[in-house]
């Protein structure tokens, strides 16, 4: 069992947890994730490690409730526990002194990008953060990201906060202004990452995305997380989750993530009718 020591909502449906996991806390590097299972009937889901405190032996995860498991998780409080938690999985982000790095987080992607942005800054990069959300209340980690970036741009789809529009508008603005951009990291919904890849492709700006394929074991054993790159099939859990954006087949990723849409909807409906069965 892995004890939840703190839990707090950052935005509607987005919750931050601090969980006791000493071995993971000690080992984890920016860009890595855990897989957890809430209870004996539960599925295994991947979540990025947003932060860790090796001394306290805790890790932080930030969870957006989108389906049964994440919504159930978001109902848990400090003092509750998670049955299984394994990590840190995946390759750590490549942290180098690139120069000017633009880090883009869409929705909960901001939470996933945060640790890597922080590491890029610590490595001496000039970090421009672009955080996008549908509307004001969904903008998360603004203060945290401001603290570890040199410039912060916020966009909302509906214009209720920051600039109205998409993160890619801001990115294009930066590129077209003639500023030198050496490195782009984009994390968010696949279509957003795809749009970023298109925005940087022509100029050959090194662009990295973190792919959220469906996973089971997270150790390279099942191949369920496979994605297609120009270099062939790769397993996101062990070869990624970060990949060169310009080589990724995003259409296939979107397609494969829809595999269980019907079952996911059924699972969520059943859960919302009787959440007490799982709590």
């Amino acid at each position, binding site marked *: 069992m892995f004890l939840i020591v703190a839990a707090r909502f950052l935005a509607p449906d987005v919750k931050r947890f601090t969980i006791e996991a000493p071995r993971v806390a000690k080992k984890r590097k920016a860009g890595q994730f855990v897989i957890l299972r809430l209870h004996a*009937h*539960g599925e295994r889901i991947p979540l990025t490690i947003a932060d860790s405190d090796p001394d306290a032996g805790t890790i932080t995860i930030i969870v957006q409730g989108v389906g049964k498991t994440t919504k159930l998780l978001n109902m848990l409080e400090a003092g509750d526990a998670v049955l299984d938690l*394994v990590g840190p999985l995946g390759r750590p982000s490549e942290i180098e002194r690139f120069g000017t790095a633009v880090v883009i987080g869409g929705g909960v992607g901001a939470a996933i990008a945060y640790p890597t942005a922080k590491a890029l800054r610590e490595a001496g990069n000039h970090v421009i953060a672009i955080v996008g959300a549908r509307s004001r209340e969904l903008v998360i980690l603004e203060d945290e990201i401001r603290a570890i970036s040199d410039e912060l741009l916020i966009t909302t789809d509906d214009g209720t906060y920051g600039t109205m529009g998409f993160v890619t508008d801001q990115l294009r603005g930066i590129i077209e202004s003639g500023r030198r951009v050496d490195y782009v990291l984009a994390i968010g919904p696949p279509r957003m990452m795809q749009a970023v890849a298109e925005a940087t492709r022509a100029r050959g700006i090194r662009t990295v995305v973190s792919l959220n394929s469906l996973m089971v074991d997270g150790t*390279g*054993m099942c*191949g*369920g997380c496979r994605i297609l790159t120009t270099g062939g099939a790769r397993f996101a859990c062990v070869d990624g989750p970060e990949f060169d954006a310009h080589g990724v087949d995003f259409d*296939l990723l979107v397609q494969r993530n*829809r*595999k269980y849409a019907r079952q996911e909807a059924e699972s969520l409906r059943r859960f919302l009718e009787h959440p007490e069965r799982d709590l």
Partner: protein
Amino acid sequence: VKIPRQHMPEQDAGLRRSNFEEVNQGLTVLGATTEALRCLQCASPKCMAGCPVGVKVKDFVELIVEGDYLRAAAKIREDNILPAITGRVCPQETQCEGCCILGNKFEPLGIGYLERFVADYERQSGQLGLPDRAPPTGKKVAIVGSGPAGLSAAGDLVRMGHAVTVFEALHEIGGVLIYGIPEFRLPKEIVRREVDVMRAMGVDFQTNVVIGKTVTIDELMADEGYDAVLVATGAGLPKFLGVPGEHLNGVYSANEFLTRVNLMRANEFPEYDEPVFDVRGRDIAVVGGGNTAMDAVRTAARLGAKTSYLIYRRSEAEMPARAEEAKHAKEEGITFLCLTNPVAFLGEEDGFVRSVRCMKMELGEPDASGRRSPRPIPDSEFELPIQMAIIALGTEANPLVQSTTPDLKTTRKGYIAADPETLRTSKKGVFAGGDIVTGGATVILAMGAGRKAAASIADYLNAGTWDQPQGA
């Protein structure tokens, strides 16, 4: 000898096709005694030579005749600590039974059935006393992976008085016995029971630890004080065909499909959260001819598939699966398409697989493995409509441990290089055994390797030196 070989009582094929309960029901006392009486008690028993761990078949069979089933079980356990499992899953026809002298003229003795019988008797009697444990040696051994190799090594080492910790990446102990081999062939309760016995003997099991990620072998030895490490991580990396359309929705690796059902219990969705593709009333195909392919196709049938095809590129005679599995599969209505090879999967607009395009094959000259190699027959392509496919082509070495342990030598194919006698690797204090050394093999070979490793680890811990010649 006039007595015919006893039949294994089985669940009716029509019935079992829709449940996950065990197919073989086990011999009755009468059946077991009758079968045991068939044994000739040979002066130089060939059966024993056919068993990779040298189970004293003749002796335990005699104890069955005497009606002393508990001593029969103890006799098997001298060489084989997981008899309830091997009695069910060993490829007996090529091992003990394949060598039994009775087989020259009649059917061989049902050694697997008898082994299973005494092991089940022992378990149901509840009389399994814990073996004696030697006084603590003060030495710590880490075992990486909890499949049959890791488990059998743990059992032996803990009995010798060493402190043993087994690290497992998944949330449940047992390796392929848990996530791969389905319930209808090996009830999970049997594996769990063996694990409980080991826990009671003092083995410390730590799930959710991926060695190489959560902690490295060097850290185990330098920071956590382990004196020796056994790497028994299996051969878990799935192979794909590399043909077009393999990434369509509904095309699984056998590992993924079986893990979803066996470990995550997706067959009980939505009671269990993990989903699996809904095959009720649909046609499916499994590609391969080994135990994994049989398990996958029979599992899919149990999930409600209408027609389940097994596509295999050689002929049935070359199939590596246990003979009993092929027989059971046919009884359950699986359609075998031998001498057939998939060349592409075709999909619907929405990305779900719609059909598999295959080529007919014929057998040519024997290849390096001694089997006649299949070659395509020109212009023989045909399309088979299916809505789910499972690729069961075998597995390769998972590189997680090797890539994070720089001084651990590997073979060209990425398996760990270990001395065949001592199972020592190129790294001091580190041993390796099971599928991660041999490539995908069998439960009994993995168990044999685990026991050999345990003895070798004990030698090393006693002597404290690492000066023997190494094959690595």
